[in-house]
């Protein structure tokens, strides 16, 4: 998976709002963008990880892998996580939550992400949950909207 716009599995996007409108005052207004997030609103991976972890624990602890249910489950999970993250007050952040669920069958899996972004403001966190029948990878990317 590469760069910002490409997401495949159960991804859900949330876009920070309002910024473009503010600038619409054409030539008259000053620019409204900020280059760095306010410290309190900065994307904090540890907090996000906790959030993801709790969600995964709630949802997946006793889950069994079944190919029919998984698409819904991934979507639901990604929405849940995204909503939670939105509530956490990361203003001006575009949150991208990706959820992948696979069956545990002994096969090897390697999953990596590559981001073309501003490493100073943007960040990501991922959490892996495993039980006997499935593994679930949740990656949350926070891209700052300047």
């Amino acid at each position: 998976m590469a760069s910002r716009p490409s997401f495949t599995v159960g991804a859900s996007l949330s876009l920070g709002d309002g910024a473009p409108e503010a600038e619409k005052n054409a030539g008259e207004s000053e620019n409204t963008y900020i280059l760095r997030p306010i410290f309190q609103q900065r994307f904090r991976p540890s907090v996000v990880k906790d959030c993801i972890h709790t969600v995964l624990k709630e949802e997946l602890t006793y889950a069994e892998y079944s190919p029919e249910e998984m698409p819904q489950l991934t979507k639901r999970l990604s929405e849940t996580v995204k909503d939670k993250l939105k509530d956490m007050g990361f203003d001006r952040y575009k949150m991208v939550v990706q959820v992948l669920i696979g069956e545990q069958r002994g096969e090897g899996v390697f999953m990596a992400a590559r981001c073309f972004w501003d490493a100073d403001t943007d960040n990501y966190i991922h959490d892996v949950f495993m039980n006997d029948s499935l593994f679930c990878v949740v990656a949350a990317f926070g891209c700052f909207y300047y």
Partner: protein
Amino acid sequence: MEPGKRRTKDDTWKAEDLRKHLWAVQSGSPKEDKKHREKKLHKDPEMDFLEYKEHKYRDPDRDARHRERAGERDLYPSKENPYGERDREKHREKRKDTKDREKEKLKEKHREQDAEKSHSRGKDREKEKDRRPRKEEMRQTAAYHNILIREARDRQLLDRADKKIRSGSKVRIEEKERREEDSERVDEDRERRYRERKLQYGDNKDNPLKFWLYKEEDERRHRKPREVDREKKHQEKSSTREKREKHLKEKGNLLTDKEGEERHREKRYRDLDDERHRSHTERKERVSKDEHKKRESKHSREDSSSVRTVTQRQGGEESVEIGKEANDLQNAGPDEISANFEDDFEDYEDDFEVCDGDDDESNYDPDSQEKSEELPLAQKREIQEIQKAINAENERIGELSSKRFPKQSRVECEKQFQADANNSPSRTPVCGIFVDFATASHRQKSRSQALKQKTRSTKLLRLIDLDFSFTFSLLDLPPVNEYDMYIRNFGKKNTKQAYVQYNDDNVERDVQTEDIETREVWTQHPGESALVSGGSRDRDISDAAAVLKIDTPRLSSFLRAACQVVAVLLEEDRLAAKPSWQLTVEDNSLHVSDSSCQLNTDLSFLQNRKVLCLHASQVQRQTVVSVHDLPGKTFSPSLDSRFLLCVWDIWQPSGPQKVLICESKVTCCCFSPFKAFLLFSGTVHGSVVVWDLREDSRIHHYVRLKDCLWTFRTPTFSTDGILTSVNHRSSLQAIEPVATSVYKKQSFVLSPFATQEEMSGLSFHIASLDESGILNMWVVVELPKADIAGSMSDLGLLPGGRIKLVHSSVIQLGNSLHWKDSEFWGPTQTLSVKFLPSDSNHFIVGTDLGLISHGTRQDLRVSPKLFKPQQPGIRPVKVNVIDFSPFGESIFLAGCSDGSIRLHQLTSEWPLAQWDSSTEGSAITSLQWSPTRPAVFLARDAASRVYVWDLLESDLGPVATQLISPDRLVAMTVMGESDKAGGSFLALALARASGTVDIQYLKRQWTIPKADEHSQLHLLLQEGPWNMEHCSRSTRVSPYT
């Protein structure tokens, strides 16, 4: 500039002119034209937004078209495919015509505004020119970017125009062609977009940022948001203009060399675009330029623009020109053509959008058809005419181009037709014009928003850094091997896996599973041979065996010592088990003794030999020597003529320790006083013989007797035959060691030599007394080194022997013993000699006259010269034995041949006591003090009786008497030790007539000393009843004297 190139450009602009003329003809009003153009140039803000919105929505379509053109360029580098382009031209033209008419009124409103704005724009441009040199590079890229956008927009317009034309004129052929184009565009759409992006980001990373930022500033300065678009165009123009100047010079060469090169084409394309714009502006500003090249281009541009803007003055001429230009189009590059057209169409873009924003295929509306039908018939006709003309022209061009590039064009044509055939059905329904203001405004809005975002992004991109910093590994789940998978599933049934580990904290597998390797090695300390250590390997063992060094003498000595120890232990064991058996069965023990044992005289070489005498060592009490007579029967020739001496250890009664042989008959013997390693003996021949018992047995004579090998030691030194001047000439009666204890006492500290002699145990002399009264003193000398070969000087020394006797002095006792009244008896015989234990200078000699002579070695005078018996006068009574008390009392016993026992005090001439009748007249042959009890002495008489005296118990006679019979007693000696508290013993060694020697251990009452026995004895001696007896006797005897 090459003429060809120049011409191309000119041609291009002529082509444009042609179009203008066409419009002019169609519309019939040049004013309208002008209006349109102006409107395009000076867009209203609303229009801007619309434009952007549309731009956004139509992206794919636009891109597709644009790309198609790019693809065409690729395919036909120099010039090709006149069909598509030209057809499109026509469509556009026609469409515009129709639209123009509809929107004449709308545009008229804006005309005045535009005029005003043109002035301000001119100023802006000037400013920009100043900055140009600085930002040349940025602009290059930015310009290109803009061009792309605009092109896309143009294409959009084209599309719309096509549709309208279709609806209006319903020319099916054209529609087909258009559709064919579309299909190609769709194919190449993606590729093109990708290229665009690459150019934007990849090629010019920094420049766009700066450019956009700069541009925004510019905008802000003007405070005219609606001019944003226009500004862009100006910038574009200005920026590209310079570049064009630069590149135009190159262009000639480039074109001649390789017209197909994309990069140059792009530049050229840009240049043309630029030029066109510039011509517009220049025209407006009336700025004249000197450059020939520019002028040319300007000229052409002005031509075209004048056509558009001002009047129709050239009407007729231009119509002629159209033909020329059409011809020239062949030479012109397709890029240029298309670019020009696009540019022109762009001018009308806004109009279309305002008029008929939504003309998608999906929104196909019958109304549009109606509208097109509403157009005046005359116009329609005109349009058709123009179209025909264009078609004809196209055909001509097609022919020419196919002639030039038959292959390429043919292929292309074929492709196009095929595509047409395929796509025609889907495209047929697209027609009609529908003006939807709401959608259009929406589109406009979104477009403007997109622009905003774009500017915003470019501004921001300048400030921030984007990078692929890391590749995040989200999940790395290694494949599970078969066994683990099995285990994972295994546990899921009714079983559960658990592991238990011994040695819990020690998880290393190796520790538990592998055996410990062991190896046996040995080492020896101190290392005496070459090999001091070895291992368990076989090779080592064999090595050890090979290297083993055998020290035979050392081994033999060790074995000898070990044998002795073992033998002693065995004998002791045997002895311990024996007594009861001996007592009961053999009845060897006497009633005076507790137990007894018998020395093994059954040895073959001792058989038939009588014991002549016995002697016990004074220091090593368990050592006793027995002297054996010649055998009664012949046994062995080598031994028959010799006398044997056996040294016994009474604890080892099974055999003698040493067996000595002597040539002559031994009459007396004694051990060295401190250590019993030397045995001295006197013979009947008057010689003194010494045996050194330490000698190695190997230098002596071996005799194999039965199974045993016996060593018979010959004397180490013998005085036989040597020292004849001083030697004894008669049989030796006694031989005594003379301890030099007196000297020792005196010089104990002073003389270092004395200590050395003591150490060697040789600090003594030997006194030998013979019958004739000669007392010889011998000094025992130990040679420092043994000489196996024998000594030349020391005659009588055994080869290899180290002990020899040196004659020290001789004492003639004959003189002192000679007294007047003894003449009758002849020469006095000396029978025994004893040295005073406390003072070895003094000695007493027993004679055969019943007298005991007292003498000193230094011929000093002594107070009692003679010790006399109680009986006065001289009687022929032999004083056989004399014995000093070993307990320091200066008293001695004398046993006489008449059976009397006298107890003398050294200070007194007369005896303290004399017992005449204790033995009933039989001669006393042995008399010895007990070594354990001061008051006890033992006596033997010739009648084979043993008497035990205990003076404390009875001073009148023996407390016990034991008759030894029937085997007569021939010799007796006393041995005993009181040093050890529990180990003290008193034993009698008794030699029988049969040749046996047995040891009788006396009863405890005579062995254990009584408390305070010394003082009691002393008291007894001082105040004893013997004085009275002595007095009485003396009185009784006195008559004789």
